[in-house]
């Protein structure tokens, strides 16, 4: 406190105000950041096979990326032509089945006495408000279409960004490294490498486990002779990437379809899905991710719900990759850099200074 110039550090204050401004700006532009993060995740996913190609076949990076993209397109096309007619038919039957399903649900709820009032109320709602609510419904539909266009635009943007990022990762890495203080650059380099390894390991492990879930679910549903087995299997496989919440939601599709045939079959489907889901969560995933990522289940669930509350559905979808990266950063920076080094010796002189 004896020297005012030391007591009040103007550059530091200005720098932190700039930091605060940047933080607020980032919060306002969180959608862009979310798309960017999705692109990074995608780029890492692309980078894993690209690097294998570079190492094995001694290709250059653009060529390897091209090969991977062409392969992916080819695979998608093949899968599409193989599965699309089947899938289209199944979606058509799903559309036909949906009204029947709703009726069946009504019948089931009708059997429970207490809910009859609600049913009558719902019917009256339908008859009364059809005409009045048509207009807002129209605008809602427009909003929905707008949302679909918006999200497809976001996905296209994300894919483009991912390809651009994957084309030249070293220069992007260099950009990030050069934007950190000089004494910290070596460390940032190491951190980036660790984040990439964790993310790549997580993605590879989850891809294997998702395809396993897809195959087992498909086979199981086909064995139980549930219609729409392929579609349900694909949904269940894709939603494996969103742990805990995803598989639970995914179970609803085959269970609802099975309910059309008989409640017993639906029960069987639910039991089968429960077994698969638990086997995936407690056996396959821990074994696959043993050496790369060690996520505690509650941490994953909390991350999903928190990001869902803060950022909506895209937050839930991207929650796991985010928490994988955040865990590495927290462990390396927060725990090892700050908290582990924060001893009483470093703390006491500061306190003495204040007391003087």
């Amino acid at each position: 406190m004896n020297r005012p110039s030391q007591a009040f550090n103007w550059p530091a204050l200005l720098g932190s105000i700039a930091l605060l401004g940047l933080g607020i700006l980032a919060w306002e532009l969180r959608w862009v950041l979310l798309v960017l993060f999705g692109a990074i995740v995608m780029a890492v996913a692309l980078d894993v096979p690209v690097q294998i190609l570079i190492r094995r076949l001694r290709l250059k990076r653009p060529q390897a990326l091209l090969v991977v993209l062409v392969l992916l397109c080819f695979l998608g096309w093949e899968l599409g032509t193989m599965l699309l007619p089947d899938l289209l038919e199944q979606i058509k039957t799903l559309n036909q089945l949906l009204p029947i399903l709703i009726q069946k649900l009504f019948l089931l709820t009708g059997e429970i006495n207490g809910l009859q009032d609600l049913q009558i109320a719902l019917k009256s709602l339908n008859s009364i408000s059809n005409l009045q609510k048509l207009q807002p419904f129209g605008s809602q539909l427009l909003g929905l279409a707008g949302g679909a266009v918006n999200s497809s635009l976001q996905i296209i943007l994300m894919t483009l960004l991912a390809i651009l990022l994957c084309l030249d990762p070293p220069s992007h890495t260099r950009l990030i490294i050069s934007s950190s203080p000089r004494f910290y650059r070596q460390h940032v380099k190491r951190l980036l490498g660790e984040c990439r390894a964790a993310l790549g390991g997580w993605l590879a492990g989850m891809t294997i486990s998702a395809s396993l879930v897809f195959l087992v679910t498909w086979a199981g549903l086909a064995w139980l002779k549930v219609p729409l087995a392929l579609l349900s299997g694909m949904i269940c496989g894709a939603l494996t990437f969103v742990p805990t919440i995803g598989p639970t939601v995914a179970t609803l599709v085959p269970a609802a379809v099975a309910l059309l045939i008989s409640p017993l079959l639906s029960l069987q489907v639910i039991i089968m899905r429960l077994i698969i889901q638990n086997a995936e969560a407690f056996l396959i995933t821990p074994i696959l991710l043993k050496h790369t990522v060690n996520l505690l289940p509650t941490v994953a669930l909390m991350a999903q719900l928190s990001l869902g509350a803060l950022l909506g559905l895209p937050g839930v979808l991207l929650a796991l990759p985010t928490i994988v990266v955040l865990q590495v950063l927290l462990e390396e920076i927060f725990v090892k850099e700050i908290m582990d080094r924060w001893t009483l010796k470093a703390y006491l002189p500061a306190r003495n200074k204040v007391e003087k």
Partner: protein
Amino acid sequence: MGFAQWCSLVALLAAATICWQLRELLIQLFAAVVLCVALTGLVSGIEQSLKIKRWQALFMALGLIILLVTLLVSQLVPPFIEQFKELLDQLPKAATYLTGLGDNYFIKMGQKTNLNLGGGVKPILGFVGNIGAAALQSLFVLAVTVMLAAQPKSYYQVAVSLAPSFYRKKFALVLDRCGLALKSWMFGVLLSSICVGLLAFFGLSLLGVKLTIANGILAGLLNVIPNVGPTIGTIFPMAVAVLESPWKAAAVLALYIIIQNLESYVITPSVMHHQLRLLPGLTLAAQVGFTLIFGPLGLILALPMAVCFQVLIRDLLINDLLDGWKRPLGA
């Protein structure tokens, strides 16, 4: 202040804002932690007394709890629904009997409700949505409880590693104390709830009011929430008693007031550890504050939270910060 300090200030502010935004989720996490403390207490008790492995004890404890809850629900719900229906049937009669001018009013009400059926649907849908959200929330709390109870040691280590290195030993100690305080508080509440439930059961059967078992269980359960819970618990047996005769309702009210005073001045002081006893004003203030911040779940969890905060404030704030705070030499 240097750049690093300013940075940490900004980061702290951002963290606080995010925590405030996510307070509903955090209170659910706290609920899961409280349940987990209870569950781990039960699990380690089974583990030690039966000399079996931990996961076996965990499964046993879960099975025991599921059995108990199904028993309680099967005991509580059907008579309540029946009685509630009867009450709803009787209520208009009682109202007409009391006011004497009810007829016209009720006819008007009937007409209004018929006309407003479309408008009445929305609250019903909202109500159904609320029930769905509450069911999802409790499912989340239960899932997190089981996950936490499956490997409590690793979560404990993570929590300790988030503290500064010079403070880790103390922080682990404080966490242990919080857990111990919660455990002994729950044990005390369990004992006093059982006492209150038994007293209500015997009192009601002496008075000859219907549904003695269900009302006794309800009184015991609601005893967990001080002040508010017993008040709510009085309504139902009084309503049941009113159906029979008004003086019985008054007797029930008197009985519950006596039980309440017995609980707060005799039972609780004798079963609760003296360090866990909160001043009554503090209890009420905590209830109001936590309800305003966290909503209805805050009301239910007000007492365990207050117990935890008491330990934290005593150990961290008073012992470590304020007690060592000398007057600066220059001032």
